[in-house]
């Protein structure tokens, strides 16, 4: 079940907004909390226990850390000479508490999402050595959004540990931060300092916020219902039976999947940000025109931004700047020089980031492979950066040149396609099988002659609608890339043009949307992660 469907957004949410606005300001956050928990229970039933446990642990861990901080500061004031020793001592205490908090939260995640993967693999290993013992494989339904809210929970206690923020004394605010309903299913992964205060402020839903919110939501539905849902059948069919299709059709399937993933995920983010906007909460953007990126490394700062930022802040820098790594860097710089020396520790940290990033998406070898693929691309890109720089200079290629930029984007997009191919493939082996067919059995002539592309649930008119809609989305992206604030610009236009835009959006969803008989909507892809 997904609540990103129009029925929920256009029928249930308005009722929530009405109730929210009618109650006194003080009770508004409670309304949000009750609603969020209600939805959680509706979807995940008794598993809500785990959400509550996460809330309780981070609340108490954070407050304990805060207490230690205050005590330490007092002690330092009393004996300034002992500053260093006191600091060290308290750091040790704090670390113990922090690790306890992390272990509890990560173990829930591990239990629900990774236990089976590890059990299956251990069983295979035991089999290999003829040991007659097997772990029982149990299947659990994980609490909804556990991958997302666990990262939020960790960021909260880590931020308190690093003293970036103070622990919250109000447990309800912590609960709302973790459980806020639009975000819990597919993110974005917010930081406490970004949303918690506004979430609990109980701002009134104003007319402007209401309009702006629904505009953003409509745009999200255009992406989801017109494009993503339309591609669903094609993608599933091609990926599940790839050996019966030609390389050309597989390529269409792979491109289709990447487009579908982008449209589904970024469309959902539009909806989430729109809903946040109703309540005056500025949820950070999770996408910034990823396909305009120059290289893979930049791509990941524009696609699922909140996840990349999380890994950067809590894995990459802490690992690469740890004491041991710094020593390593120092040594490496002496041998490899200033450019490549720090790359060693960087590469190790990057490896950690992408292994975890792959696994975060799911327990499976395809995801691990996907992570390693991104790791390799980013590392190679960094190693060869100076070489490419010099070559360009020698050949007098202007790297800001539009032709060069397009070349870069196309190259990067191809790398993305390959990555997403493995991401969606049923197994790594199948992924290679598909890749092989694309390169060895493209067979464009036969594909066109046998009308293979039209046996996948889409006729030529469907392809046409997809392409036209993508062009519109591309133009919007281009304008955003050029720093146009489209919403403000639209709101300055006169009412006729404005309303025409809205009517066009609504009617195109109603008419060209892929819903009703003959269509199966995409399940929220990221909600499974």
């Amino acid at each position: 079940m997904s609540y990103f469907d129009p029925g929920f957004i256009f029928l249930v949410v308005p009722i929530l907004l009405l109730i929210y606005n009618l109650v006194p300001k003080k009770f508004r956050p409670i309304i949000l909390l009750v609603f969020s928990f209600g939805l959680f229970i509706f979807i995940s039933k008794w598993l809500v226990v785990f959400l509550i446990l996460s809330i309780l642990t981070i609340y108490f861990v954070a407050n304990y850390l805060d207490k230690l901080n205050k005590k330490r500061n007092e002690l330092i004031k009393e004996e300034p000479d002992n500053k260093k020793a006191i600091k060290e001592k308290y750091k040790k205490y704090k670390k113990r508490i922090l690790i306890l908090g992390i272990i509890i939260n990560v173990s829930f995640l591990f239990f629900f999402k990774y236990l089976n993967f590890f059990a299956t693999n251990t069983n295979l290993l035991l089999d290999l050595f003829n040991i007659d013992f097997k772990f029982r494989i149990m299947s659990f339904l994980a609490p909804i959004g556990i991958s997302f809210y666990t990262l939020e929970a960790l960021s909260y206690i880590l931020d308190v540990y690093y003293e970036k923020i103070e622990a919250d004394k109000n447990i309800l605010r912590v609960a709302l931060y973790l459980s806020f309903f639009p975000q819990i299913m597919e993110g974005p992964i917010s930081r406490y300092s970004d949303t918690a205060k506004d979430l609990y402020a109980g701002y009134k839903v104003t007319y402007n916020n209401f309009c702006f919110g629904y505009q953003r939501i409509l745009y999200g539905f255009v992406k989801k219902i017109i494009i993503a849902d339309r591609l669903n059948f094609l993608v599933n069919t091609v990926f599940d039976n790839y050996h019966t299709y030609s390389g050309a059709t597989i390529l269409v399937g792979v491109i289709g999947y990447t487009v579908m993933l982008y449209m589904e995920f970024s469309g959902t983010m539009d909806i989430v940000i729109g809903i946040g906007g109703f309540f005056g909460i500025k949820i950070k953007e999770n996408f910034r025109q990823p396909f305009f990126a120059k290289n893979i490394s930049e791509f990941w700062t524009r696609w699922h931004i909140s996840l990349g930022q999380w890994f950067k802040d809590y894995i990459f820098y802490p690992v690469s700047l740890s004491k041991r790594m710094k020593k390593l860097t120092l040594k490496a710089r002496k041998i490899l020089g200033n450019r490549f020396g720090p790359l060693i520790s960087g590469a190790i940290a990057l490896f950690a980031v992408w292994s975890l990033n792959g696994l975060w998406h799911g327990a499976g070898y395809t995801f691990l492979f996907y992570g390693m693929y991104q790791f390799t691309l980013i590392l190679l890109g960094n190693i060869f950066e100076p070489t490419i720089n010099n070559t360009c200079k020698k050949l007098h290629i202007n790297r800001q040149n539009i032709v060069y930029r397009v070349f870069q984007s196309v190259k990067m997009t191809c790398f993305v396609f390959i990555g997403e191919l493995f991401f969606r493939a049923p197994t790594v082996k199948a992924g290679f099988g598909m890749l092989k067919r694309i390169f060895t059995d493209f067979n464009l002539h036969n594909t066109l002659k046998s009308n293979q592309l039209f046996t996948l649930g889409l006729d030529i008119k469907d392809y046409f609608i997809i392409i036209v809609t993508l062009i519109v989305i591309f133009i919007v992206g281009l304008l955003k890339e050029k720093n146009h604030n489209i919403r403000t610009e639209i709101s300055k236009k006169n009412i006729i043009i404005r309303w025409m835009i809205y009517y066009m959006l609504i009617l195109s969803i109603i008419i060209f949307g892929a819903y009703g008989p003959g269509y199966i909507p995409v399940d929220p892809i990221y909600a499974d992660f």
Partner: protein
Amino acid sequence: MERLIEILEELQPDVDFNTVENLIDGRYLDSLTILSLVAEIEEEFDIEIPTVEIIPSNFNSAKSIWELIEKLKEQ
């Protein structure tokens, strides 16, 4: 400050570090370059930059990096 600019130019020759104010947000410095930068600064100025300080607002311009160095030197 001059020494800092030198270090920066060594890492990224194409950028005018006296004027650019979005080194991170504009992706002039990516995360691996930051590592090199941190290593160089730590050695050059004999300070230690804690992980917490590695945030865009501290690294977006040469000026803000310099302010960070000054702050850490005092501690």
